[in-house]
């Protein structure tokens, strides 16, 4: 069985500052994918960034980057230059390479202060 844990229920960040969201996971698979999803209030959940476990290089998408530590089974998300539109629930998720079902963490709410 796979598990994903997000230990921070809520994080607050000042506009233009940086915030890092933590995610740890457990899986017996050697080949898998990790994702961060963003769910704004009353809006559609969207994919922010993804990481292939076989790649050592950390994924980056504009202001969003990850710190993937495979041995430690850690997958944190860094949001740089935070904007008001970044306020949302963020979910970390894991799927084995040949799998069909994502395993989600419990979510972290990000508040952005102007």
């Amino acid at each position, binding site marked *: 069985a796979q598990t994903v844990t997000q230990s921070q229920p809520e994080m607050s960040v000042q506009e233009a500052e940086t915030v890092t969201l933590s995610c740890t996971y457990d899986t017996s698979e050697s080949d898998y994918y990790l994702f961060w999803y963003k769910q704004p209030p009353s809006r559609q959940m969207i994919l922010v960034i*993804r990481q292939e476990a076989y790649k050592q290089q950390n994924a980056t998408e504009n202001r969003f980057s990850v710190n993937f530590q495979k041995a430690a089974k850690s997958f944190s998300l860094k949001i740089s230059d935070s904007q008001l539109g970044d306020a949302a629930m963020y*979910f970390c998720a894991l*799927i084995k390479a*040949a799998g*069909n079902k994502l395993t989600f963490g419990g979510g972290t709410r990000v508040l952005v202060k102007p």
Partner: protein
Amino acid sequence: EADIYQTPRYLVIGTGKKITLECSQTMGHDKMYWYQQDPGMELHLIHYSYGVNSTEKGDLSSESTVSRIRTEHFPLTLESARPSHTSQYLCASSEPTGTGRYGYTFGSGTRLTVV
């Protein structure tokens, strides 16, 4: 613009009513999923389908049922709504191959309130 559509967005209904939550996607995805999202925002898989005429129960037991008669359509039905069914319901789909690589595409959700 979303390629997966859920209707209605909001629904308030009385106890004992039968309801169907609609989910349609235009991407030709074989795999579709229903999640229930509780007030704490945690996601629970309640149903999934890997293709036409294929449906399975998810990790969280649910009194709802689903059908998959067409690839693009995956409706969820509650025969007799109860206040305990009050929740947000999210529909998602994924590519025929490479679910692992690309993850899911989500709909906007249906927020159901049973009074």
